[in-house]
């Protein structure tokens, strides 16, 4: 894998979907408008989505679902950001967790500051095999990452900063504690990292509860660009098949030179199939083409269970979901699956375990929703029947009373 990060040509169009994985955003531009690089195209709730900036200059075309930006090739840019507070600057720059979760970085900073964290961990352990975006960033940009780390540590007043590169990454940064994390996938998640580096079991707590905050290395890099250069987050390093490229947010997946096959976005294991018009999002770490593999029947070897960080039994989950046994699923804790895909990697029969679990989760949510709806409808129906019954019996009583009085009356005649 080449160490140097490639730069690609400007694509013919940049596409920004308004419905992102983190939530909805509303367009802040109109069709036909000219924008400069750095203009706000759309904005959502600052606590979930935040701001979306134009990655180049050009003309806007608005559709109900997307903002399209047709580049004019001039690369006009807005003046740099100027906010004096780091969290504010990071918020203005639209920085979110680039490791994959997409949690707004300013919010995390604020929470960490309020919790007075003492330890800052920079996560450069690749989340998935065959993804090397973090690694390539770490290799060529030590100084920038160091600058980002210093800025974050100063803001948080953290006394300890740990840089955690993954296997096979040699980093030598002056005055920095480096703790290489080796071993089997998955070790790149925050929880695993905190356990491995500090020996702390988080269980249900967040890292900030134990005085730790973890930032992905790409996020740290983006913070550095925003803090020291006033830049907004408009590009990131993406592993495209087997090389790493600087891609603008919004770069259409279709315009990447990829071999034939099923295009997966987000990593070969935990990613999903590219949809029509899919483009690079802030959280997109990788775009890969899957060579279709032939699955064989489960031989119950248990390797999936051995590899599951949550201690689940993927083979049993798989069997239950495929058989539609939703009732047995609680004991198997389907909802605890963190979708890391470790079981997929371990399975000698190459079964699509993770995909099945995702399907199972959504199917179960749907079933629950339907059951809830049915319960509501039933309650409504019983209430209505009771009401009608009440009315009817009141009517009956009234009638009987009327009849009785009439009878009495006829008698008297």
């Amino acid at each position, binding site marked *: 894998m080449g160490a140097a990060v490639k730069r690609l040509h400007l694509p013919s169009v940049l596409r920004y979907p308004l419905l992102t994985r983190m939530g909805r955003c509303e367009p802040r531009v109109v069709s036909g408008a000219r924008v400069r690089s750095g203009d706000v195209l759309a904005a959502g709730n600052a606590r979930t989505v935040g701001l979306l900036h134009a990655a180049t200059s050009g003309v806007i075309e608005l559709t109900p679902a997307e903002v399209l930006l047709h580049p004019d090739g001039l690369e006009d840019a807005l003046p740099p950001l100027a906010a004096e507070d780091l969290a504010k600057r990071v918020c203005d720059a639209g920085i979110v967790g680039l490791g994959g979760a997409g949690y707004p970085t300013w919010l995390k900073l604020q929470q960490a500051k309020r919790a007075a964290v003492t330890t800052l961990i920079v996560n450069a352990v690749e989340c998935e095999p065959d993804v090397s975006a973090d690694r390539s960033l770490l290799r060529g940009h030590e100084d920038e990452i160091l600058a980002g780390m210093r800025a974050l540590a100063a803001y948080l007043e953290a006394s300890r900063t740990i840089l955690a590169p993954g296997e096979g990454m040699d980093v030598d940064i002056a005055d920095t504690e480096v703790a290489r994390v080796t071993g089997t996938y998955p070790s790149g998640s925050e929880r695993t990292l905190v356990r491995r580096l500090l020996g702390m079991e988080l269980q249900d707590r967040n890292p900030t509860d134990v005085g730790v905050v973890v930032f992905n290395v790409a996020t740290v890099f983006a913070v550095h660009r925003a803090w020291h250069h006033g830049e907004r987050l408009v590009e990131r390093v993406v592993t495209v098949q087997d090389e790493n490229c600087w891609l603008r947010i919004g770069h259409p997946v279709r315009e990447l030179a990829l071999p034939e096959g099923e295009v997966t976005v987000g990593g070969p294991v935990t990613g999903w199939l590219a949809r029509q018009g899919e483009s690079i999002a802030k959280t997109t770490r990788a775009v890969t083409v899957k060579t279709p593999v032939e699955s*064989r029947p*489960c031989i*119950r070897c*248990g*390797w999936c269970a051995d590899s599951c960080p949550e201690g689940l039994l993927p083979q*049993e989950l798989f069997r239950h979901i495929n058989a539609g046994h939703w009732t047995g699923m609680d004991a*198997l804790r389907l909802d605890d699956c963190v979708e890391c895909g470790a079981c997929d990697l371990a399975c000698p029969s190459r079964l699509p375990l993770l995909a099945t679990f995702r399907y199972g989760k959504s199917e179960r949510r749907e079933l629950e929703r339907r059951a809830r709806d049915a319960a509501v409808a039933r309650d409504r129906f019983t209430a209505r029947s009771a009401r009608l019954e009440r009315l009817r019996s009141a009517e009956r009583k009234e009638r009987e009373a009327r009849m009785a009085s009439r009878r009495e009356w006829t008698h008297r005649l």
Partner: protein
Amino acid sequence: MDASTLDTRDIMLRTGVALVPAFAAATYWFGPGVLVNLAVTLGAGVALEAGWVWARFRTFDAVKDASTPVTCALIAIAVPPSLHPGILVFAAAMAVILAKQIYGGIGKNVFNPAMVGYAAALVAFPAHFADWDMLTGATALDALRFREGATVAEVWGQPAFGLVGAHGFEVVNAAALAGGLYLCAVRIANWRMPVAVLASLGACAALGYDNGSSASLGSPMFHWFSGGTMLAAFFIATDPVTSPSSVRAQWIFGIAIGALIYCIRSFGAYPDGIAFAVLLANLAAPALDKAMLRP
């Protein structure tokens, strides 16, 4: 070796490789009849299964995992050398068709196919198994059982016995142990099963052994290295399909096999009961899992 890159086929091929020492030892001690068995069961098993899946699915996908050759090899080494080819074909058919394909193919069978094939042949053609076979290890085990009051040391003088176990079998067992340890080392076989089987068999034997008096039933060493103990412990009890998934259930499963082997060997009508011990434990595996599968 990185186990995570192996696929099902690799697992089966490696299991085949791990059987090579046992076959070499068996061929050396019991003659080329062992290899004749192998050729016949392999040919019959693979052809029968291929015919079956072709008739049902019109594709050969279901045989590509290479599990059938392993099943056939296990049958071939378990039965007497140069067994009548008809019986071998019968055993192979029972294994791949009745025990595996009828249940829906690999992964769905309840019973270990090799043991079903072996047991069916043993029950149907007992005369052919009378004086020799791997899983019964008849001569020595029988000699020890029907010895009419002789002490162990006296019986040991007979040519049926070797250094620690039954003559010849001890070497085959040692070879199977070597192959089995390899499988455990590359994490294809689950080490818990052989440990549980051998420990429980050893414990039972130790209880029934009083330093070789006339009532004694054979030492742990003797039981470990006679009959098909090592094959059963490392190659048959570890079949992931027919053994439980949860760790506690696996221990119980292995312990049950060891104890059943000892009981059938010592008190049953068959001299060695490995096949029946395994089949009985297979039968219990789903229930064990159901009871213990609380992640």
